[in-house]
């Protein structure tokens, strides 16, 4: 027997090592729910997951003394830039140096980038009123000591076109800076912000953790040197990813601790043997490891949610070894091999019906469900095989020491005595509960509810974003085209429409690639119109305006100084001053994508305005995911129905009777209806995870019904003893999940736990013995 124990240990070690070495785990929820059905979507999904926005931290720095904030954030910026993996630090309030750098870079192109409607806007520029206003503004600059840095540029840009260009960027000034003069009367905000962009994926928590710590430590060190208390709040994708990882890690620890403790107690009480726990643990861990390896091999990675949910699915697998152990312990000859062989047909049928249910899931296009189906299938198959061919070998030498002390005689006696009235009572009760609960049934496709709660973090995120940025996360306008120039032209159409919406107050802000870069077409249009407008007559009008303001005609009165250059994408890439644009455009695989971020906006009006624009889509990630979830739900219900029919057919094929097959499914049906009613009466909406949980309930209850019906040991008492123990272990395993903070695990806990307990109680009551079963089975097995 020793060699089987050694073999088991080696097998377990090999499987775990292979998992550690070869399985890549992902935690992004979009990997689980979102399937890129075309290259463009794949590009976009990849961009959203690893793009600049996902790699950013938003830092909100607050202090009672606003004077400190200015110098503090400048010093913090310099300090952060020295840290590893920090690519860029952008201050909320752009300083003079940044503006000067912008002016220096963009001055030659201020005419080419002047307007998206040059035919209308450029002639307006040369009206007398506009020229007068412009010269007045130049005088303001000259008289203002603080604009000294702007003066040298006046010679090259006498019409001050640069100010028109930079004015378009005011949308980039994050909220917090006064929007107009009226607000300036108020107290200044006692906060400021920084955007810190890292070079590693925001979802890579292992790499983000040291960056996060370095950011916090840099802040604390610097803040300690200031007299006033300066506080920091951070948000961003990396912050959420780390919090989720931490929460999941805490959940795993807590659940593992509780369930391990309860399992040990259960095994000590029921089997009076810790060795039995080790056997079951060996089978369970080996099954999970084998399932992980196979899933990773087929899909290339494994989602953490599949591991979490899948592992609980394999909880059904512990039923098989427990049944085997209970029967072996009760075997008169203490022959584990023989007793396992005796119940084997029931075990594999139970396993097969479960696998069929999950194989049906794989026909949905839901990437997570497909992984889950394969994971559960491989896990259950491994568990069955180990139960049949390894467990008896491991048990044999010790089975005489394993004694099962729990019995279910009182319940069985009660059922035996009052079977009919109790059946009626249960059915009437179920019908009444279903009728009451049905109107309250709610369904949700909101995948956000599966994310960890993190209420504090979410509130902090909203607050920080409200201070620093008006961008609505997850909503944007996507422009796509076969080439960059066409994408730019389409992007400009979008910018024009959004500007109209902004003017109407339907969009608070939008952040477009224009005016950082414009299509060659619009730039050439600008220059063409400028060329026709830079006439001697307009120059005379301009000189008149200058004279009115007492400005030097000699220095500022010549149009020939106006630069008429086009900014090409190649030159654009070399400019230093385009920090805000990271991740706003993509060009690969013969496709160009451009993103326009949106501030607060009226969704319907934006959609309506963009309707009909070629290659333009309004994207709401949340709506998109939820729409896909709704589609998955329809698919899943369809495949689950087909799966149920397949299970029914399997049972019919096995038992040769539709009545018997229906009877096997009946306890599962009643348990499922009661669990659904429970959720409805609690006022909780059900979703995809509930469906997965219910599938598991059906699988387990069908197993119990098969064991009850076939009663391979020839002793109902022994069979129910096995079901009792296995249902207790399953219930403990699942109800332990109820101690987790993760809503997905909570859902599984409170769906499967009650369902399994109901199935266990209902099987002896609702599964009818007889039916000519023995004759039928003998005939078929023969």
């Amino acid at each position, binding site marked *: 027997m020793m060699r089987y124990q050694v073999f088991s240990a080696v097998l377990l070690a090999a499987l775990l090592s292979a998992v550690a070495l070869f399985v890549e785990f992902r935690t992004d929820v979009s990997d689980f729910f979102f399937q890129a059905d075309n290259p463009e979507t794949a590009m976009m999904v990849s961009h959203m997951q690893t793009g600049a926005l996902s790699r950013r931290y938003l830092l909100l720095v607050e202090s009672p*003394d*606003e*004077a*400190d904030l*200015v*110098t503090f954030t400048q010093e913090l910026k310099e300090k952060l830039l020295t840290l590893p993996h920090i690519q860029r630090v952008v201050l909320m*309030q*752009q300083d*003079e140096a940044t*503006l000067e750098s912008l*002016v220096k870079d963009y001055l030659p192109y201020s005419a080419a980038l002047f307007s998206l409607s040059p035919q209308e806007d450029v002639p307006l520029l040369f009206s007398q009123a*506009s020229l007068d*206003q*412009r010269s007045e*503004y*130049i*005088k303001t600059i*000259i*008289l*203002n*000591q*603080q*604009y*000294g*840095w*702007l*003066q*040298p540029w*006046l010679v090259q840009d006498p019409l*001050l076109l*640069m*100010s*028109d260009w*930079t*004015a378009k960027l*005011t949308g980039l*000034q994050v909220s917090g*800076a*006064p929007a*107009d*003069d009226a607000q*300036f*009367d108020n*107290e*200044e905000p006692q906060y400021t912000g920084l955007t810190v962009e890292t070079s590693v994926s925001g979802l890579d928590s292992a790499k983000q953790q040291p960056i996060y710590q370095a950011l916090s430590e840099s802040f604390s060190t610097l803040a300690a040197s200031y007299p006033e208390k300066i506080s920091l709040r951070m948000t961003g994708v990396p912050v959420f990813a780390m919090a989720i990882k931490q929460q999941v890690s805490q959940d795993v620890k807590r659940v593992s601790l509780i369930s391990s403790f309860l399992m040990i107690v259960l095994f000590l009480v029921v089997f009076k043997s810790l060795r039995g726990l080790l056997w079951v643990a060996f089978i369970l861990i080996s099954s999970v490891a084998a399932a992980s390896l196979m899933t990773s091999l087929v899909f290339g990675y494994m989602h953490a949610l599949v591991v979490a949910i899948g592992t609980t699915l394999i909880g059904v697998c512990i039923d098989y070894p427990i049944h085997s152990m209970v029967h072996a312990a009760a075997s008169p000859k203490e022959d584990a091999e023989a007793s396992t062989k005796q119940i084997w047909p029931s075990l594999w049928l139970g396993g097969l019906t479960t696998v069929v249910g999950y194989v049906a899931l794989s026909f949905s296009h839901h990437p997570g469900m497909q992984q889950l189906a394969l994971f559960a299938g491989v896990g259950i198959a491994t568990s069955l095989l180990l139960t049949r061919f390894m467990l008896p070998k491991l048990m044999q030498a010790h089975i005489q020491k394993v004694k099962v002390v729990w019995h279910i005689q009182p319940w069985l006696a009660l059922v035996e005595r009052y079977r009919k009235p109790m059946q009626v009572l249960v059915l009437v009760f179920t019908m009444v509960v279903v009728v009451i609960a049905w109107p309250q049934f709610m369904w949700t496709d909101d995948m956000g509810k599966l994310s960890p709660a993190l209420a504090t973090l979410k509130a902090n995120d909203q607050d920080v974003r409200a201070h620093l940025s008006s961008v609505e996360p997850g909503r944007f306008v996507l422009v796509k085209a076969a080439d960059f120039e066409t994408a730019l032209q389409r992007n400009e159409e979008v910018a024009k429409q959004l500007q109209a919406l902004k003017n109407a107050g339907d969009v608070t802000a939008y952040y477009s690639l224009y005016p950082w870069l414009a299509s060659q077409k619009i730039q050439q249009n600008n220059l063409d119109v400028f060329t026709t407008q830079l006439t001697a007559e307009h120059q005379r009008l301009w000189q008149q305006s*200058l*004279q009115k303001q*007492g*400005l*030097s*005609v000699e*220095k*500022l009165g010549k149009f020939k100084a106006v630069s008429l250059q086009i900014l090409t994408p190649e030159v654009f890439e070399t400019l230093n001053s385009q920090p805000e644009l990271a991740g706003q455009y993509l060009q690969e695989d013969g496709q160009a994508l451009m993103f326009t971020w949106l501030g607060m906006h009226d969704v319907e009006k934006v959609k309506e305005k963009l309707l009909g624009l070629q290659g333009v889509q309004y994207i709401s990630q949340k709506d998109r995911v939820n729409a896909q979830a709704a589609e998955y739900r329809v698919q899943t219900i369809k495949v689950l129905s087909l799966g149920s029919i397949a299970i029914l057919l399997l049972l019919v094929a096995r038992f040769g009777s539709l009545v018997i097959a229906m009877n096997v499914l009946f306890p599962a049906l009643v348990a499922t209806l009661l669990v659904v009613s429970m959720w409805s009466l609690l006022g909780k909406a059900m979703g995809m995870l509930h469906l997965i949980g219910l599938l598991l309930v059906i699988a387990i209850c069908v197993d119990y019904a098969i064991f009850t019906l076939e009663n391979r040991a020839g002793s109902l008492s022994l069979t129910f003893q096995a079901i009792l123990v296995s249902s207790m272990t399953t219930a403990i395993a699942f109800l332990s999940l109820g101690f987790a903070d993760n809503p997905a695990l909570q859902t599984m806990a409170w769906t499967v736990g009650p369902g399994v307990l109901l199935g266990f109680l209902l099987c002896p009551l609702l599964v009818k013995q007889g039916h000519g079963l023995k004759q039928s089975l003998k005939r078929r097995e023969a």
Partner: protein
Amino acid sequence: MVKCCCPYLNRLSKLKKYAFLVLSVWLSFTAQAVAGDSLDEVLARHVIQAPEKIIYTQTKYNQYLSEPVRASGTIYIQPDYFVMQQDSPLPMLVVSNHERIWFYDIDKDRRYERKITRLNQKDPALNALITMLRFGDIKVLKNQFDIKIEALDVGWVLDMQPRHFQSKKIFKTMKLQGKAGKKVERFEIISLHNDSTVWQFDTRPFSDDTAEVVELLKQTARGL
């Protein structure tokens, strides 16, 4: 419609400009030099003993202006307050204490207010001036400026050149001039591009009536 390249900066600069002028002029009046005095003695004698009333004219010379731009008005200096009432070309009121500055655009009836410390933080030279005015810390001022004093029989000239890059971007030098044993009469700021602003001062008695006027101006600027 022409817009400033950054509206926020535009408004901030408007105040910075006045904060800078306010404090520069304040300094020039608080440093009463006497021929033969050392620099330290001149600067150490900055504390205002009594309130002052000064009639001023300001002239801006700039290469982009066809002719100089002039402004005039009255300055009132108290130990804890500075009040500048400009009469022409645009009527405006600037009031400052050591912590805040209030700007009142009389024509537009608009008021702006800022903590002066914030404006100073962005400009170390300005900050040094404030530190010296408030605490008499000459060292800080010397860190920020190369200061030369030329004491003549007829008067004195104080030449202050900023030492740091940030300040050098704003101005090249400041010159304060006065008669021997008298207060500052001329104050000139020369910019990086050799444009300059010249202030001429004429000190008048500060009567009780003047004190009342100053209180009224303070309240007006603050919108009280």
